[in-house]
């Protein structure tokens, strides 16, 4: 999947031309010049992925019980047992949360492929790094196609020797936020992103089969307690999984400028998906912190 043929024909022509283009706003552009960075080109990567509900609970798996004792093979699965107290093979589990590993893997594949292409374009323009990275994933054309688009501005450090053979560094930061990071003695290493997807099922299989779709959450009695518990456990798990995914990519480095976005989607009664996306920049200390001058106090008269 790597190598020059991965980037479309028009890209080299664009990147070879003498002038640069940059997605930086003017204030970010000015800050970039002030730091001694010279923009050399707008670089991007792109990946269209087939996107669907596969695995347990998907329409393609109809007829299978959504409940598997081990969940989906991910690190997280949690089962709530039937409160009725009678023991039967089917009527034991009444609600399950589990990590949707296949969603996370597909997202990672889409993101990494697009990001790899951005880095490829950056190498083509001889960049030391890529700043002001943005990434989006949204559905396109048909609902089962998701596009991953990663965009950034490739820069060269003025006066520095040509970049080493390795990957250029990259960061979500640009402008004064990046300047402050460098001032604090840190260099960006790479953007880091991960997603966690947790499915929350509140179906009793027996009731589902007998009455068609009854959920625990609609039942009276102890139900509301479990509703809250199952949802909050699911949300907690999504955040924890996203954090663990990112932690594994950090090595001994530090994560800076993190954004966490959590979304909920209701598939049907008692059937929800929680997704947590975590983005940040992996940074490494390269010099001591120089104390900045004392700030000047200001008062706004408007």
């Amino acid at each position, binding site marked *: 999947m790597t190598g020059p043929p991965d980037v*479309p024909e028009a890209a080299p022509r664009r990147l070879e031309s003498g*002038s640069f283009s940059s*997605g930086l706003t003017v204030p970010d*552009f000015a800050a970039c010049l*002030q730091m001694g960075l010279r*923009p050399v080109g*707008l670089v991007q990567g792109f990946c269209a992925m087939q996107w669907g509900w596969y695995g347990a609970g998907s329409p393609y798996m109809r007829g299978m019980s959504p409940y598997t004792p081990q969940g989906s093979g991910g690190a997280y699965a949690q089962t709530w047992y039937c409160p009725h107290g009678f023991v039967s093979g089917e009527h034991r589990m009444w609600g399950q949360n589990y990590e949707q590993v296949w969603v996370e893997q597909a997202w990672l594949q889409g993101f990494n492929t697009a990001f790899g292409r951005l880095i490829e374009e950056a190498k083509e323009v001889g960049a030391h790094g890529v700043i002001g990275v943005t990434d989006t994933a949204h559905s396109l054309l048909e609902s089962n196609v998701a596009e991953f688009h990663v965009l950034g501005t490739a820069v060269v450090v003025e006066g520095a020797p040509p970049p080493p053979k390795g990957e250029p560094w990259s960061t979500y930061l640009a402008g004064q936020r990046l300047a402050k990071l460098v001032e604090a003695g840190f260099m960006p290493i790479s953007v880091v992103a991960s997603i966690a997807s947790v499915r929350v099922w509140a179906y009793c299989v027996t009731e589902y089969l007998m009455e068609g779709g009854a959920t625990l959450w609609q039942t009276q009695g102890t139900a509301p307690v479990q509703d809250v518990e199952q949802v909050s456990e699911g949300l907690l798990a999504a955040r924890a999984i996203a954090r663990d995914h990112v932690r594994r990519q950090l090595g001994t480095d530090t994560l800076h400028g993190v954004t966490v976005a959590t979304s909920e989607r209701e598939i049907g009664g008692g059937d929800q998906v929680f997704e947590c996306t975590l983005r940040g920049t992996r940074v490494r200390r390269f010099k001591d912190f120089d104390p900045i001058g*004392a*700030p000047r106090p200001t*008062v706004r008269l408007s």
Partner: protein
Amino acid sequence: MTGPTDLPKDAGHRLEELQHGFFTSDLSVNEFLLVKECGFHPLGFVMGSSIYHTGIQGRRWSKSQELDKLTEAMYNARELAMTRMEEEAEALGADGVVGVRLDVNYYEWGSDAAEFIALGTAVKAEDGKSYRNKLGKPFTSDLSGQDFWTIMQTGYVPQGLVMGTCVYHIAHRGLGQTLGSVGQNVELPNFTQALYEARELAMTRMQDEGNRLEATGIVGVRLEEKTHQWGSHTIEFLSLGTAVTKTADEVTLPRPTVIISLDN
């Protein structure tokens, strides 16, 4: 297509009034002050418009391809609107136009027709130096007053609002292809290549415009995607930014002052 005759009669009257020192502008008060601070004076609010027929071009259901007729139409329409705006600025003797906005409007009375409109504030340097671009025309830019001030501090001057567009038809997938990959989340290389190619084409064309102005680079590039009225598989990729040129003199940028706000 060019020359002052292109503009409506009323424009002449409006512009004449503006030539006597009276000015209109859509700059905010802060923007006005900043434009004045870096030595420019607003001359007047200028615009250009073009109503263009943008029909649909034949395309093959299962083939990804550029729709070159539509690309051309979308490009020419914007170019016409921009040129007319530049003519108005020219009539005022402006050095450039700041805060340019390019809009597309659809009206009920014209199916398949769209109005492309360019709006901005014409400005002139107070020191008498010419800031016109390499083609001898007033520069255009979508920079706000604040951005205009900042870019002037960096030793770069705007040359022109540059754009590139590409209307692309993305192939529909055949039933066989769709069924063949059921049950997996995989990359769809055909879609990737088509969309990637379309974006790169739009960006290349924008950069070609920049090169024609002998610009050093383009700042504030935006990528817009619109399906307009063509259905979801036909997409216009529009790339826009302000081309800038580095002036000869080396500029040392002042360190920004660190402030702390005492307001609550």
